[in-house]
């Protein structure tokens, strides 16, 4: 009898939890299957897998553009499948293996080689035509192409730059940091106890210390600004890595010293990913962050009072400024049955009006030349990003390049971790060994 009562109690609890969990879910997202055409009504359904849909305020902005397109094209229905950027590449790989790709999916120059190797992307040079592509910045088209075949239509550029609290800098009499020494000086000045209770509650720099692509993409321009490259071709055309060179070690040492030696980074650095770092900026706990312009939208959506207080500047330098293009766009699936319709929608998406709308809402930079000339690109908020594009470098055409994010992320995270027994020399050697192993495999 007693065990019966126990079973009943457990069942009711389980049922309650189950119902609670189910009620919390939103209506089911459409599956990322191949597109469908409702033959009876002639309605084309485009399935688009979008990383932007999982972000605020980018997701609603993209949705409103799609809604507007559907208003103008009643025969087209756009269904979004939201997948976070950190999960996107995995999802695409799995769907590709199952031959179940959507019509279009978010892609980046870092991933396009993997997708190209899988033969799952349409050649967009043919689909859009060379004349149309002349409206874009040529270096962005080049960055998004393999062997002259455009792999993704660049929609937004998010070059990494330094976002800083312009109002705090002005109050302290500081200028935008040009070198890493300027940066350190500013970070030290802005790390303080604002409440006067003997405890630091404001820090100079929200360092992203998670071991993932998000952290890796932020460290690589820092590494390059010290004159070292994670991978490059030498004079003879062979791939080599600089990860164990003195310059790379200096970059790594400086980066981890910000936390370990100078204490200008908020506690819990290895747990600080982009969302946490953006929150630190939004809540006034950090003065600087390395990020793309989309971070401005994220920060302002959390704290609109910061409008006009966030400035940007290229990432400081030891030898020279560096930035990634941070291109994000859409690839069209080779197996899509509605390639023309997708192309038409994507043209609408990247049009000047919509690109400027995205820029206004999220901060991401447009990829078309005319849109880039707009007045709204010259505010202190965005000028640093536009300038950073001058220092943007191309992603190395190395097939396993995406592994380098993890290689460098393992380096800095190991050294940032409390109680770590590793030294810069030993971790740099480990990173170089991993890189050389990949180089050895390349082309085999």
């Amino acid at each position, binding site marked *: 009898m007693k065990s019966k009562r126990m079973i009943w109690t457990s069942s009711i*609890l389980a049922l309650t939890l189950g119902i609670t969990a189910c009620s919390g879910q939103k209506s089911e997202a459409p599956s990322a299957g191949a597109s469908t055409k409702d033959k009876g009504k002639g309605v084309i359904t485009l399935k688009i897998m979008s990383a932007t849909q999982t972000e605020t305020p980018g997701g609603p902005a993209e949705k409103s553009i799609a809604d507007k397109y559907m208003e103008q094209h009643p025969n087209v229905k756009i269904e979004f499948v939201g997948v976070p950027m950190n999960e996107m590449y995995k999802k695409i*790989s799995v769907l590709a293996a199952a031959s179940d790709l959507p019509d279009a999916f978010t892609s980046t120059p870092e991933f396009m080689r993997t997708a190209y*190797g899988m033969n799952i992307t349409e050649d967009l040079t043919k689909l859009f035509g060379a004349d149309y592509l002349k409206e874009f910045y040529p270096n962005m088209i080049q960055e998004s192409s393999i062997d002259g075949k455009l792999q993704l239509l660049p929609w937004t550029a998010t070059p990494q730059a330094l976002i800083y609290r312009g109002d705090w800098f002005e109050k302290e009499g500081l200028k935008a940091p040009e070198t890493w020494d300027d940066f350190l000086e500013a970070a030290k000045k802005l790390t303080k106890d604002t409440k006067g209770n003997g405890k630091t509650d404001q820090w100079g720099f929200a360092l992203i210390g998670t071991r993932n692509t998000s952290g890796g993409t932020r460290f690589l321009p820092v590494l390059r600004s010290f004159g070292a490259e994670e991978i490059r071709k030498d004079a003879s055309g062979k791939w080599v890595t600089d990860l164990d060179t003195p310059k790379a070690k200096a970059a790594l040492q400086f980066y981890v010293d910000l936390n370990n030696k100078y204490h200008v980074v908020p506690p819990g650095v*290895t747990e600080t990913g982009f969302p946490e770092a953006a929150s630190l900026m939004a809540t006034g706990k950090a003065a600087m962050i390395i990020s793309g312009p989309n971070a401005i939208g994220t920060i302002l959506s959390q704290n609109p009072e910061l409008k006009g207080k966030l400035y940007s500047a290229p990432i400081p330098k030891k030898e020279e400024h560096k930035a990634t293009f941070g291109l994000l766009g859409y690839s069209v699936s080779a197996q899509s049955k509605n390639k023309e319709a997708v192309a038409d929608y994507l043209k609408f998406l990247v049009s000047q009006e919509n690109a400027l709308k995205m820029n206004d809402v999220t901060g991401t930079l447009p990829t078309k030349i005319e849109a880039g000339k707009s007045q709204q690109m010259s505010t202190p908020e965005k000028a640093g990003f536009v300038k950073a594009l001058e220092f943007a470098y191309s992603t190395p055409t190395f097939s396993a390049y995406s592994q380098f994010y993890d290689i460098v992320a393992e380096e800095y995270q190991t050294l940032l971790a409390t109680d770590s027994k590793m030294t810069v020399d030993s971790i740099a050697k480990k990173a170089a060994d991993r890189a050389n192993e990949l180089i050895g495999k390349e082309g085999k």
Partner: protein
Amino acid sequence: MKHTVSKEQWAGYGFVSPAAIILLLLVTYPLIYGAYISFFNTNLVNIWDFVGIHQYIDIFSNWEFVGKIFLTLKYTFFTVVGHFILGIILALVLNMDLRGRTFFRAILILPWLLPEVVVGLLWKWLFNPMYGLFNYILMDLHLISDPVSWLGDTYFAFIAVTIVCIWKGYPMVMLLVLAGLQSISQDTYEAAKIDGCNRMQSFRYVTVPGLMPVLLVTLILDTVWWFKHFTMIWILTEGGPGDATNVVSIDIFKQAFQYFDFGKAAAMAVIVFFVCFLIGYVYRRVFSSANE
């Protein structure tokens, strides 16, 4: 002599076949396919280069993977020991005739009912150095002066992950042991009492032998389950900081879905399968000889 299948036997095959087909499709086929992939260098779409046992040679050519296996064994050992200590103690308490027993039984199985993702996020917030409850309490009690990054410390991160996994998994052991305790006849205890056994002796000579079959099954299930655990460790630390909590399941996931090296990931998974198989085999041998 010709053997003919009787009607009853056909009926037997008929009843068994749906389950057998489902098992073949959902268990056997993925296992064999996984092993098959491990002999290729593949992206699972258009590249299928046969490399024989090269992936296995590659894995064992350095100590890194072996080190991760040992880290996983260490994590599994502490987690399972924690489950058994907590689970058995709570099962013994809940088996007593105490007031509010049903309520506590319902409360104590809650961690088991919560989804792993929820548990991972919940504990991650508790451990958070800026907003976490643990740091707040410890600082309030003046036990620490500055917030500690529990998940950012190579030593504490492992302990923190193990604590979370013990918290999540003890109810299964508790429930199974409780069921085992209730299946032991009261007559046996009475017989032991008549023979002069005190409570400790009753526990040693009646309870423990009565629980052994349940404990063996629970031990195998629990060990294998937590050896290949992924979700909560990924949410809490993603295998970090550095490699401090980089257990094999995390490594396999990274190989497959971050490095897109599906062949190597499959080879690692095959090795993990054999490790799990070996654990089960050793347990059965050890416990069956102990019973004899």
